[in-house]
Protein backbone atom coordinates (compact mmCIF):
# COMPACT_ATOMS: atom_id res chain seq x y z
CA UNK A 1 0.00 0.00 0.00
CA UNK A 2 1.38 3.41 -0.92
CA UNK A 3 -0.33 5.53 1.71
CA UNK A 4 -1.97 4.71 5.01
CA UNK A 5 -5.71 5.06 5.01
CA UNK A 6 -8.51 4.55 7.48
CA UNK A 7 -12.25 4.30 7.92
CA UNK A 8 -13.35 7.46 9.71
CA UNK A 9 -17.10 7.36 9.16
CA UNK A 10 -19.62 4.53 9.30
CA UNK A 11 -23.34 4.50 8.60
CA UNK A 12 -26.02 1.89 8.08
CA UNK A 13 -29.78 1.70 7.94
CA UNK A 14 -31.96 -0.40 10.19
CA UNK A 15 -32.24 -3.45 7.96
CA UNK A 16 -35.80 -4.61 7.42
CA UNK A 17 -37.94 -6.84 5.20
CA UNK A 18 -39.57 -3.76 3.65
CA UNK A 19 -38.57 -0.13 3.81
CA UNK A 20 -41.76 1.21 2.30
CA UNK A 21 -41.10 4.69 3.68
CA UNK A 22 -38.11 5.42 1.44
CA UNK A 23 -37.02 5.01 -2.17
CA UNK A 24 -33.65 3.48 -3.00
CA UNK A 25 -32.26 7.01 -3.17
CA UNK A 26 -33.66 7.85 0.25
CA UNK A 27 -32.29 4.62 1.67
CA UNK A 28 -28.72 5.05 0.45
CA UNK A 29 -28.77 8.66 1.56
CA UNK A 30 -29.70 7.58 5.07
CA UNK A 31 -26.56 5.42 5.33
CA UNK A 32 -24.36 8.02 3.61
CA UNK A 33 -25.60 10.83 5.89
CA UNK A 34 -24.85 8.73 8.98
CA UNK A 35 -21.33 7.93 7.73
CA UNK A 36 -20.63 11.61 6.98
CA UNK A 37 -21.92 12.67 10.40
CA UNK A 38 -19.66 10.09 12.04
CA UNK A 39 -16.71 11.39 10.01
CA UNK A 40 -17.53 15.01 10.89
CA UNK A 41 -17.95 15.83 7.21
CA UNK A 42 -20.50 16.90 4.65
CA UNK A 43 -21.13 15.91 1.04
CA UNK A 44 -18.98 18.85 -0.11
CA UNK A 45 -15.90 17.41 1.64
CA UNK A 46 -15.99 14.21 -0.41
CA UNK A 47 -13.71 13.80 -3.45
CA UNK A 48 -15.30 10.72 -5.03
CA UNK A 49 -18.06 8.17 -4.51
CA UNK A 50 -17.72 4.41 -5.02
CA UNK A 51 -20.95 2.44 -5.06
CA UNK A 52 -21.87 -1.24 -5.27
CA UNK A 53 -24.94 -3.43 -5.39
CA UNK A 54 -25.91 -6.88 -6.61
CA UNK A 55 -26.87 -7.33 -10.28
CA UNK A 56 -29.20 -4.65 -11.71
CA UNK A 57 -31.72 -7.35 -12.59
CA UNK A 58 -32.72 -7.65 -8.93
CA UNK A 59 -34.55 -4.31 -8.74
CA UNK A 60 -34.80 -3.96 -12.50
CA UNK A 61 -33.06 -0.58 -12.53
CA UNK A 62 -30.23 -0.43 -15.03
CA UNK A 63 -27.09 1.32 -13.79
CA UNK A 64 -28.75 2.83 -10.70
CA UNK A 65 -25.54 4.69 -9.86
CA UNK A 66 -26.56 7.34 -12.40
CA UNK A 67 -29.91 7.87 -10.76
CA UNK A 68 -28.29 7.90 -7.30
CA UNK A 69 -25.54 10.44 -8.07
CA UNK A 70 -27.75 13.32 -6.91
CA UNK A 71 -28.81 11.64 -3.67
CA UNK A 72 -25.17 10.90 -2.83
CA UNK A 73 -23.78 14.35 -3.59
CA UNK A 74 -21.74 12.91 -6.45
CA UNK A 75 -22.83 15.28 -9.20
CA UNK A 76 -19.71 16.59 -10.93
CA UNK A 77 -17.46 14.20 -8.99
CA UNK A 78 -15.87 10.91 -9.97
CA UNK A 79 -18.27 8.04 -9.30
CA UNK A 80 -17.40 4.38 -9.73
CA UNK A 81 -19.69 1.36 -9.75
CA UNK A 82 -18.38 -2.05 -8.70
CA UNK A 83 -19.88 -5.39 -9.80
CA UNK A 84 -18.89 -8.63 -8.02
CA UNK A 85 -22.25 -10.26 -7.20
CA UNK A 86 -22.76 -10.93 -3.47
CA UNK A 87 -19.21 -9.97 -2.54
CA UNK A 88 -19.76 -6.52 -4.04
CA UNK A 89 -20.07 -4.65 -0.75
CA UNK A 90 -16.57 -5.80 0.20
CA UNK A 91 -15.05 -5.21 -3.23
CA UNK A 92 -16.64 -1.75 -3.31
CA UNK A 93 -14.99 -0.80 -0.02
CA UNK A 94 -11.65 -2.05 -1.35
CA UNK A 95 -11.94 -0.06 -4.58
CA UNK A 96 -12.74 3.04 -2.49
CA UNK A 97 -9.75 2.38 -0.21
CA UNK A 98 -7.47 1.86 -3.24
CA UNK A 99 -8.39 5.35 -4.47
CA UNK A 100 -7.07 6.70 -1.16
CA UNK A 101 -4.12 4.32 -0.68
CA UNK A 102 -2.80 5.21 -4.14
CA UNK A 103 -3.03 8.92 -3.41
CA UNK A 104 -5.65 9.68 -6.06
CA UNK A 105 -8.19 10.98 -3.54
CA UNK A 106 -8.13 12.01 0.14
CA UNK A 107 -11.75 11.43 1.15
CA UNK A 108 -13.90 8.82 -0.52
CA UNK A 109 -17.49 7.97 0.30
CA UNK A 110 -18.39 4.36 -0.39
CA UNK A 111 -21.95 3.05 -0.37
CA UNK A 112 -23.65 -0.29 -1.00
CA UNK A 113 -27.30 -1.27 -0.92
CA UNK A 114 -30.10 -3.61 -1.85
CA UNK A 115 -33.83 -3.07 -1.69
CA UNK A 116 -35.04 -6.63 -1.86
CA UNK A 117 -38.67 -5.59 -1.35
CA UNK A 118 -38.47 -3.73 -4.67
CA UNK A 119 -37.11 -6.85 -6.30
CA UNK A 120 -37.39 -10.62 -6.44
CA UNK A 121 -33.94 -12.07 -5.91
CA UNK A 122 -35.17 -15.66 -5.83
CA UNK A 123 -36.64 -15.12 -9.31
CA UNK A 124 -33.60 -13.20 -10.54
CA UNK A 125 -31.29 -16.03 -9.44
CA UNK A 126 -33.48 -18.72 -11.01
CA UNK A 127 -34.26 -17.35 -14.48
CA UNK A 128 -34.29 -20.16 -17.03
CA UNK A 129 -31.11 -20.10 -19.10
CA UNK A 130 -31.29 -20.54 -22.87
CA UNK A 131 -31.07 -24.19 -24.00
CA UNK A 132 -30.89 -25.46 -20.41
CA UNK A 133 -33.23 -27.38 -18.15
CA UNK A 134 -35.06 -25.00 -15.78
CA UNK A 135 -33.53 -26.40 -12.61
CA UNK A 136 -32.03 -23.36 -10.91
CA UNK A 137 -33.59 -22.76 -7.51
CA UNK A 138 -32.03 -19.66 -5.98
CA UNK A 139 -28.76 -19.36 -4.11
CA UNK A 140 -29.76 -22.11 -1.67
CA UNK A 141 -30.25 -24.55 -4.53
CA UNK A 142 -26.74 -23.77 -5.70
CA UNK A 143 -24.99 -23.99 -2.33
CA UNK A 144 -26.90 -26.86 -0.66
CA UNK A 145 -25.18 -29.61 -2.72
CA UNK A 146 -21.78 -28.11 -1.87
CA UNK A 147 -22.74 -28.06 1.81
CA UNK A 148 -23.79 -31.70 1.57
CA UNK A 149 -20.37 -32.51 0.11
CA UNK A 150 -18.69 -30.59 2.98
CA UNK A 151 -20.64 -32.51 5.62
CA UNK A 152 -19.65 -35.77 3.91
CA UNK A 153 -15.98 -34.80 3.54
CA UNK A 154 -15.54 -33.46 7.08
CA UNK A 155 -17.70 -36.00 8.92
CA UNK A 156 -19.35 -33.13 10.80
CA UNK A 157 -22.42 -33.91 12.94
CA UNK A 158 -25.66 -32.79 11.23
CA UNK A 159 -26.53 -30.14 13.82
CA UNK A 160 -23.48 -27.89 13.38
CA UNK A 161 -25.28 -25.75 10.79
CA UNK A 162 -28.21 -25.30 13.15
CA UNK A 163 -25.81 -24.20 15.89
CA UNK A 164 -24.49 -21.44 13.61
CA UNK A 165 -28.07 -20.40 12.85
CA UNK A 166 -28.82 -20.05 16.57
CA UNK A 167 -25.53 -18.35 17.47
CA UNK A 168 -25.76 -15.64 14.80
CA UNK A 169 -29.40 -14.86 15.70
CA UNK A 170 -28.41 -14.56 19.39
CA UNK A 171 -25.70 -12.12 18.29
CA UNK A 172 -28.29 -10.17 16.27
CA UNK A 173 -30.26 -9.51 19.45
CA UNK A 174 -27.34 -7.31 20.51
CA UNK A 175 -27.38 -5.33 17.24
CA UNK A 176 -30.25 -2.85 16.86
CA UNK A 177 -29.59 -2.58 13.10
CA UNK A 178 -30.04 -6.33 12.48
CA UNK A 179 -33.14 -7.34 10.54
CA UNK A 180 -34.02 -10.65 12.22
CA UNK A 181 -34.75 -10.27 15.92
CA UNK A 182 -35.69 -13.72 17.20
CA UNK A 183 -35.55 -13.66 21.01
CA UNK A 184 -36.81 -17.26 21.28
CA UNK A 185 -34.31 -18.74 18.82
CA UNK A 186 -33.00 -22.18 19.76
CA UNK A 187 -32.00 -25.43 18.06
CA UNK A 188 -35.55 -26.73 18.21
CA UNK A 189 -36.93 -23.70 16.39
CA UNK A 190 -34.34 -24.12 13.62
CA UNK A 191 -34.92 -27.86 13.37
CA UNK A 192 -38.69 -27.38 13.16
CA UNK A 193 -38.46 -24.77 10.42
CA UNK A 194 -39.20 -26.05 6.92
CA UNK A 195 -36.43 -27.89 5.05
CA UNK A 196 -36.11 -25.54 2.06
CA UNK A 197 -33.08 -26.92 0.31
CA UNK A 198 -32.21 -30.19 2.02
CA UNK A 199 -29.84 -30.17 4.02
CA UNK A 200 -30.70 -26.49 4.68
CA UNK A 201 -33.61 -25.48 6.91
CA UNK A 202 -35.41 -22.17 6.42
CA UNK A 203 -33.77 -20.77 9.56
CA UNK A 204 -30.32 -21.82 8.30
CA UNK A 205 -30.75 -19.38 5.42
CA UNK A 206 -30.37 -15.62 5.24
CA UNK A 207 -33.42 -13.34 5.14
CA UNK A 208 -34.35 -10.92 2.34
CA UNK A 209 -33.64 -7.41 3.55
CA UNK A 210 -33.80 -3.80 2.51
CA UNK A 211 -30.78 -1.85 3.66
CA UNK A 212 -27.74 0.24 2.90
CA UNK A 213 -24.23 0.65 4.28
CA UNK A 214 -21.74 3.47 3.89
CA UNK A 215 -18.23 4.40 4.94
CA UNK A 216 -15.93 7.40 4.61
CA UNK A 217 -12.37 6.31 3.88
CA UNK A 218 -9.66 8.92 4.31
CA UNK A 219 -5.94 9.45 3.88
CA UNK A 220 -3.76 9.48 6.99
CA UNK A 221 -3.55 13.28 7.38
CA UNK A 222 -7.31 13.69 7.00
CA UNK A 223 -8.01 10.73 9.31
CA UNK A 224 -5.70 12.15 11.99
CA UNK A 225 -7.32 15.58 11.80
CA UNK A 226 -10.85 14.14 11.94
CA UNK A 227 -9.98 11.86 14.88
CA UNK A 228 -8.97 15.03 16.76
CA UNK A 229 -12.01 17.07 15.78
CA UNK A 230 -14.66 14.37 16.23
CA UNK A 231 -13.10 12.56 19.20
CA UNK A 232 -13.82 9.23 17.47
CA UNK A 233 -10.98 6.92 16.54
CA UNK A 234 -10.35 5.63 13.03
CA UNK A 235 -10.12 2.02 11.87
CA UNK A 236 -6.78 1.69 10.05
CA UNK A 237 -6.63 -0.57 7.04
CA UNK A 238 -3.82 -3.11 7.49
CA UNK A 239 -4.43 -5.16 4.40
CA UNK A 240 -6.93 -5.66 1.60
CA UNK A 241 -7.19 -8.28 -1.11
CA UNK A 242 -9.50 -9.57 -3.81
CA UNK A 243 -9.37 -12.83 -5.75
CA UNK A 244 -11.60 -14.61 -8.22
CA UNK A 245 -11.72 -17.93 -10.03
CA UNK A 246 -13.98 -19.43 -12.71
CA UNK A 247 -17.18 -21.06 -11.42
CA UNK A 248 -16.67 -24.08 -13.65
CA UNK A 249 -13.42 -25.89 -14.26
CA UNK A 250 -12.38 -29.51 -13.99
CA UNK A 251 -10.93 -30.28 -10.58
CA UNK A 252 -12.32 -27.16 -8.94
CA UNK A 253 -12.49 -27.46 -5.15
CA UNK A 254 -15.97 -26.05 -4.66
CA UNK A 255 -16.01 -26.69 -0.92
CA UNK A 256 -12.72 -24.92 -0.23
CA UNK A 257 -12.07 -22.66 -3.24
CA UNK A 258 -8.49 -21.73 -4.04
CA UNK A 259 -9.39 -18.08 -4.66
CA UNK A 260 -10.58 -17.77 -1.07
CA UNK A 261 -7.46 -19.45 0.30
CA UNK A 262 -5.20 -17.24 -1.80
CA UNK A 263 -7.10 -14.10 -0.85
CA UNK A 264 -6.83 -14.89 2.87
CA UNK A 265 -3.13 -15.64 2.56
CA UNK A 266 -2.55 -12.31 0.84
CA UNK A 267 -4.57 -10.17 3.24
CA UNK A 268 -3.03 -11.78 6.33
CA UNK A 269 0.50 -11.40 4.93
CA UNK A 270 -0.13 -7.69 4.35
CA UNK A 271 -1.46 -7.32 7.90
CA UNK A 272 1.37 -9.36 9.45
CA UNK A 273 -1.09 -11.97 10.74
CA UNK A 274 0.37 -15.46 10.90
CA UNK A 275 -2.30 -17.13 13.08
CA UNK A 276 -5.69 -15.53 12.46
CA UNK A 277 -7.46 -17.38 15.26
CA UNK A 278 -4.93 -16.12 17.81
CA UNK A 279 -4.04 -12.71 16.43
CA UNK A 280 -7.46 -11.42 15.42
CA UNK A 281 -10.02 -10.37 18.01
CA UNK A 282 -13.04 -11.11 15.86
CA UNK A 283 -14.18 -11.59 12.29
CA UNK A 284 -17.18 -10.60 10.21
CA UNK A 285 -17.46 -13.25 7.54
CA UNK A 286 -20.04 -13.65 4.77
CA UNK A 287 -22.13 -16.61 5.96
CA UNK A 288 -25.48 -16.56 4.09
CA UNK A 289 -26.14 -20.24 4.82
CA UNK A 290 -25.25 -21.70 8.23
CA UNK A 291 -22.70 -24.27 7.08
CA UNK A 292 -20.55 -21.61 5.45
CA UNK A 293 -19.18 -20.73 8.90
CA UNK A 294 -17.26 -24.01 9.34
CA UNK A 295 -16.42 -24.05 5.63
CA UNK A 296 -14.92 -20.54 5.68
CA UNK A 297 -13.15 -21.19 9.02
CA UNK A 298 -11.14 -23.73 7.03
CA UNK A 299 -10.89 -21.70 3.83
CA UNK A 300 -9.55 -18.66 5.70
CA UNK A 301 -7.02 -20.66 7.69
CA UNK A 302 -8.56 -20.26 11.17
CA UNK A 303 -8.03 -24.02 11.50
CA UNK A 304 -6.92 -27.01 9.45
CA UNK A 305 -9.07 -28.40 6.66
CA UNK A 306 -11.79 -30.61 8.12
CA UNK A 307 -11.72 -28.95 11.56
CA UNK A 308 -14.00 -25.94 10.98
CA UNK A 309 -17.05 -27.61 12.44
CA UNK A 310 -15.13 -28.41 15.63
CA UNK A 311 -14.54 -24.70 16.29
CA UNK A 312 -18.21 -23.90 15.73
CA UNK A 313 -19.33 -26.90 17.78
CA UNK A 314 -17.10 -25.93 20.71
CA UNK A 315 -18.50 -22.38 20.86
CA UNK A 316 -15.19 -20.81 19.78
CA UNK A 317 -16.99 -18.48 17.36
CA UNK A 318 -19.57 -17.24 19.85
CA UNK A 319 -19.53 -13.76 21.33
CA UNK A 320 -20.51 -15.47 24.55
CA UNK A 321 -17.15 -16.79 25.68
CA UNK A 322 -15.62 -17.86 22.37
CA UNK A 323 -11.96 -17.08 21.68
CA UNK A 324 -12.57 -15.95 18.09
CA UNK A 325 -16.12 -14.55 17.78
CA UNK A 326 -17.49 -14.62 14.24
CA UNK A 327 -20.31 -12.33 13.12
CA UNK A 328 -20.96 -10.53 16.39
CA UNK A 329 -23.40 -8.32 14.46
CA UNK A 330 -25.59 -11.30 13.60
CA UNK A 331 -24.03 -11.55 10.16
CA UNK A 332 -25.69 -12.20 6.82
CA UNK A 333 -27.90 -14.82 8.50
CA UNK A 334 -29.59 -11.95 10.35
CA UNK A 335 -29.55 -9.14 7.74
CA UNK A 336 -29.19 -9.59 4.01
CA UNK A 337 -29.54 -6.51 1.86
CA UNK A 338 -27.44 -8.46 -0.68
CA UNK A 339 -25.36 -5.66 -2.25
CA UNK A 340 -24.73 -4.14 1.18
CA UNK A 341 -24.11 -7.44 2.99
CA UNK A 342 -20.40 -7.53 2.14
CA UNK A 343 -19.89 -3.90 3.12
CA UNK A 344 -21.67 -4.58 6.42
CA UNK A 345 -19.01 -7.20 7.15
CA UNK A 346 -16.23 -4.71 6.40
CA UNK A 347 -17.97 -1.97 8.34
CA UNK A 348 -18.69 -4.13 11.37
CA UNK A 349 -15.01 -5.14 11.53
CA UNK A 350 -14.15 -1.43 11.52
CA UNK A 351 -16.74 -0.67 14.24
CA UNK A 352 -15.15 -3.33 16.44
CA UNK A 353 -11.63 -1.92 16.27
CA UNK A 354 -12.99 1.59 16.83
CA UNK A 355 -14.69 0.30 19.98
CA UNK A 356 -18.05 1.50 18.62
CA UNK A 357 -19.96 -1.77 18.23
CA UNK A 358 -22.19 -1.17 21.23
CA UNK A 359 -23.72 -4.25 22.83
CA UNK A 360 -22.02 -6.62 20.39
CA UNK A 361 -18.57 -5.10 21.01
CA UNK A 362 -15.69 -7.53 21.61
CA UNK A 363 -13.76 -6.11 24.57
CA UNK A 364 -10.55 -4.29 23.51
CA UNK A 365 -10.79 -5.48 19.91
CA UNK A 366 -7.74 -4.19 18.10
CA UNK A 367 -7.63 -6.28 14.91
CA UNK A 368 -10.53 -7.68 12.89
CA UNK A 369 -11.26 -9.30 9.56
CA UNK A 370 -14.00 -8.23 7.16
CA UNK A 371 -14.85 -10.80 4.46
CA UNK A 372 -17.23 -11.16 1.56
CA UNK A 373 -17.79 -13.76 -1.14
CA UNK A 374 -20.12 -13.84 -4.07
CA UNK A 375 -21.52 -15.59 -7.13
CA UNK A 376 -20.79 -19.31 -7.16
CA UNK A 377 -18.04 -18.74 -4.56
CA UNK A 378 -15.95 -17.20 -7.33
CA UNK A 379 -15.41 -13.68 -5.95
CA UNK A 380 -13.62 -12.97 -2.67
CA UNK A 381 -12.86 -9.67 -0.94
CA UNK A 382 -11.22 -9.23 2.45
CA UNK A 383 -9.68 -6.60 4.63
CA UNK A 384 -7.97 -6.49 8.00
CA UNK A 385 -8.53 -3.35 10.06
CA UNK A 386 -6.87 -2.35 13.28
CA UNK A 387 -7.04 0.27 16.01
CA UNK A 388 -3.35 1.10 15.49
CA UNK A 389 -1.74 2.59 12.44
CA UNK A 390 -0.08 -0.04 10.27
CA UNK A 391 3.71 -0.15 10.51
Amino acid at each position, binding site marked *: MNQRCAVIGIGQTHHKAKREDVSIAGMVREAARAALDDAGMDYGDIDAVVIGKAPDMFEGIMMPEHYLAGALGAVGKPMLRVHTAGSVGGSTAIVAAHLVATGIHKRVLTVAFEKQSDSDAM*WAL*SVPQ*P*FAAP*LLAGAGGYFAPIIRAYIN*RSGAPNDVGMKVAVKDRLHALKNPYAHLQLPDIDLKMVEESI*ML*WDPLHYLESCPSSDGAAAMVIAAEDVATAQEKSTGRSAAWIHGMAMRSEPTMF*AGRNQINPQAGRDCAKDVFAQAGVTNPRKELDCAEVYVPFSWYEPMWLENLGFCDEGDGWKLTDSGATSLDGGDIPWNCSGGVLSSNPIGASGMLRFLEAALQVRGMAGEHQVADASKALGHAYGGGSQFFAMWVVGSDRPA
Partner: protein
Amino acid sequence: MSDALETQDPVTMLSTPIRLDYDFTAGVAQSRSLRGYAEGRFVGQRCPVCKKVYVPSRGSCPVDAVPTKEEVVLPNTATVTTFCVVNVPFAGQSIEIPYITASILLDGADITFMGLIQGIPADEVRMGLRVEAVWVPKEELGPTLASVKYFQPTGEPDREISTFREHL
Protein backbone atom coordinates in the same frame (compact mmCIF):
# COMPACT_ATOMS: atom_id res chain seq x y z
CA MET B 1 -61.25 12.51 -3.63
CA SER B 2 -64.41 10.41 -3.62
CA ASP B 3 -65.68 8.76 -0.43
CA ALA B 4 -65.04 5.35 -1.95
CA LEU B 5 -61.31 6.10 -2.27
CA GLU B 6 -61.02 7.57 1.20
CA THR B 7 -61.95 4.28 2.76
CA GLN B 8 -59.21 2.40 0.88
CA ASP B 9 -55.70 1.78 2.22
CA PRO B 10 -53.06 3.94 0.54
CA VAL B 11 -51.15 2.35 -2.35
CA THR B 12 -47.56 1.98 -1.20
CA MET B 13 -46.20 -0.44 -3.78
CA LEU B 14 -47.25 -2.03 -7.05
CA SER B 15 -45.83 -4.86 -9.10
CA THR B 16 -45.39 -4.11 -12.79
CA PRO B 17 -44.44 -7.34 -14.60
CA ILE B 18 -42.27 -6.69 -17.62
CA ARG B 19 -40.83 -9.00 -20.26
CA LEU B 20 -37.67 -8.92 -22.25
CA ASP B 21 -37.14 -10.99 -25.38
CA TYR B 22 -33.63 -11.47 -26.61
CA ASP B 23 -31.63 -13.40 -29.15
CA PHE B 24 -28.98 -15.73 -27.78
CA THR B 25 -26.10 -16.84 -29.95
CA ALA B 26 -24.80 -20.15 -28.68
CA GLY B 27 -21.46 -19.99 -30.48
CA VAL B 28 -19.62 -22.69 -32.43
CA ALA B 29 -18.57 -24.96 -29.53
CA GLN B 30 -21.80 -24.91 -27.54
CA SER B 31 -23.78 -25.41 -30.76
CA ARG B 32 -22.09 -28.80 -31.17
CA SER B 33 -23.38 -29.93 -27.77
CA LEU B 34 -26.82 -28.48 -28.51
CA ARG B 35 -27.01 -30.36 -31.82
CA GLY B 36 -25.99 -33.46 -29.87
CA TYR B 37 -29.02 -33.05 -27.57
CA ALA B 38 -31.22 -32.85 -30.67
CA GLU B 39 -29.82 -36.28 -31.62
CA GLY B 40 -30.25 -37.66 -28.11
CA ARG B 41 -26.57 -37.76 -27.15
CA PHE B 42 -24.04 -35.89 -25.04
CA VAL B 43 -21.22 -34.22 -26.97
CA GLY B 44 -18.24 -32.74 -25.16
CA GLN B 45 -14.68 -31.67 -25.92
CA ARG B 46 -11.27 -32.70 -24.60
CA CYS B 47 -8.57 -30.17 -23.71
CA PRO B 48 -5.35 -30.88 -25.65
CA VAL B 49 -3.23 -29.88 -22.61
CA CYS B 50 -4.86 -31.26 -19.45
CA LYS B 51 -6.94 -33.89 -21.34
CA LYS B 52 -10.00 -33.02 -19.25
CA VAL B 53 -13.36 -33.54 -20.94
CA TYR B 54 -15.86 -30.69 -20.73
CA VAL B 55 -19.53 -31.27 -21.41
CA PRO B 56 -21.28 -29.29 -22.73
CA SER B 57 -18.39 -28.24 -24.90
CA ARG B 58 -17.31 -24.66 -24.43
CA GLY B 59 -14.60 -24.18 -27.05
CA SER B 60 -11.74 -23.59 -24.65
CA CYS B 61 -10.24 -24.91 -21.45
CA PRO B 62 -10.72 -22.44 -18.54
CA VAL B 63 -7.56 -23.75 -16.86
CA ASP B 64 -5.14 -23.88 -19.80
CA ALA B 65 -6.72 -21.11 -21.89
CA VAL B 66 -6.33 -23.08 -25.12
CA PRO B 67 -8.96 -23.92 -27.74
CA THR B 68 -10.54 -27.37 -27.39
CA LYS B 69 -11.22 -29.06 -30.72
CA GLU B 70 -11.27 -32.83 -30.09
CA GLU B 71 -14.89 -33.93 -29.85
CA VAL B 72 -15.95 -36.65 -27.40
CA VAL B 73 -19.33 -38.40 -27.40
CA LEU B 74 -20.28 -39.41 -23.87
CA PRO B 75 -22.58 -42.21 -22.68
CA ASN B 76 -25.92 -41.83 -20.95
CA THR B 77 -24.58 -43.22 -17.69
CA ALA B 78 -23.42 -40.99 -14.87
CA THR B 79 -22.79 -40.62 -11.16
CA VAL B 80 -24.57 -38.26 -8.74
CA THR B 81 -21.69 -36.46 -7.02
CA THR B 82 -23.94 -34.44 -4.71
CA PHE B 83 -27.51 -33.14 -4.68
CA CYS B 84 -30.18 -31.00 -3.07
CA VAL B 85 -33.86 -31.59 -2.39
CA VAL B 86 -35.59 -28.39 -3.50
CA ASN B 87 -38.65 -27.59 -1.44
CA VAL B 88 -38.94 -23.85 -1.99
CA PRO B 89 -41.64 -22.39 -4.21
CA PHE B 90 -40.82 -19.31 -6.29
CA ALA B 91 -42.15 -17.26 -9.18
CA GLY B 92 -41.55 -18.85 -12.58
CA GLN B 93 -40.89 -22.34 -11.18
CA SER B 94 -41.80 -25.03 -13.72
CA ILE B 95 -41.26 -28.24 -11.73
CA GLU B 96 -43.48 -29.38 -8.90
CA ILE B 97 -41.77 -29.34 -5.47
CA PRO B 98 -40.18 -31.19 -3.84
CA TYR B 99 -37.72 -32.21 -6.53
CA ILE B 100 -34.10 -33.31 -6.58
CA THR B 101 -31.38 -31.50 -8.46
CA ALA B 102 -28.07 -33.30 -8.62
CA SER B 103 -24.58 -32.64 -9.86
CA ILE B 104 -24.28 -35.14 -12.67
CA LEU B 105 -20.88 -36.51 -13.65
CA LEU B 106 -21.24 -38.35 -16.97
CA ASP B 107 -18.92 -41.35 -17.30
CA GLY B 108 -15.79 -40.05 -19.00
CA ALA B 109 -16.49 -36.38 -18.22
CA ASP B 110 -14.42 -34.18 -15.90
CA ILE B 111 -17.08 -31.62 -15.08
CA THR B 112 -20.55 -31.89 -13.58
CA PHE B 113 -23.80 -30.25 -14.67
CA MET B 114 -27.13 -29.93 -12.93
CA GLY B 115 -29.77 -32.59 -13.63
CA LEU B 116 -33.15 -33.64 -12.33
CA ILE B 117 -33.39 -37.02 -10.55
CA GLN B 118 -36.53 -39.14 -10.76
CA GLY B 119 -37.53 -42.76 -10.31
CA ILE B 120 -36.33 -42.96 -6.70
CA PRO B 121 -37.81 -41.64 -3.44
CA ALA B 122 -36.16 -38.38 -2.34
CA ASP B 123 -34.83 -39.85 0.90
CA GLU B 124 -33.03 -42.63 -0.97
CA VAL B 125 -30.93 -40.42 -3.23
CA ARG B 126 -27.27 -40.47 -2.20
CA MET B 127 -23.84 -39.26 -3.21
CA GLY B 128 -22.33 -41.85 -5.56
CA LEU B 129 -25.70 -43.04 -6.92
CA ARG B 130 -25.41 -44.44 -10.46
CA VAL B 131 -27.91 -42.95 -12.91
CA GLU B 132 -28.71 -42.80 -16.62
CA ALA B 133 -30.27 -40.13 -18.79
CA VAL B 134 -33.85 -40.59 -19.93
CA TRP B 135 -34.44 -38.59 -23.11
CA VAL B 136 -37.75 -37.19 -24.29
CA PRO B 137 -39.39 -39.07 -27.21
CA LYS B 138 -37.47 -38.74 -30.48
CA GLU B 139 -39.98 -36.38 -32.09
CA GLU B 140 -39.62 -34.00 -29.12
CA LEU B 141 -35.79 -33.89 -29.11
CA GLY B 142 -34.39 -30.39 -29.58
CA PRO B 143 -31.15 -28.43 -29.23
CA THR B 144 -31.53 -28.00 -25.48
CA LEU B 145 -30.55 -29.85 -22.32
CA ALA B 146 -34.29 -29.96 -21.64
CA SER B 147 -34.23 -32.89 -24.13
CA VAL B 148 -33.07 -34.93 -21.15
CA LYS B 149 -36.28 -35.55 -19.21
CA TYR B 150 -34.45 -36.63 -16.09
CA PHE B 151 -31.85 -39.06 -14.76
CA GLN B 152 -32.97 -42.32 -13.13
CA PRO B 153 -31.09 -44.97 -11.13
CA THR B 154 -29.41 -47.74 -13.14
CA GLY B 155 -29.41 -50.19 -10.26
CA GLU B 156 -25.61 -50.57 -10.37
CA PRO B 157 -23.70 -50.42 -7.05
CA ASP B 158 -22.88 -46.87 -5.86
CA ARG B 159 -19.56 -45.36 -6.79
CA GLU B 160 -17.19 -44.82 -3.84
CA ILE B 161 -17.12 -41.10 -2.96
CA SER B 162 -13.33 -41.20 -2.72
CA THR B 163 -13.19 -41.97 -6.46
CA PHE B 164 -14.80 -38.65 -7.44
CA ARG B 165 -13.61 -36.30 -4.69
CA GLU B 166 -11.88 -34.08 -7.22
CA HIS B 167 -15.28 -33.32 -8.75
CA LEU B 168 -16.76 -31.88 -5.52
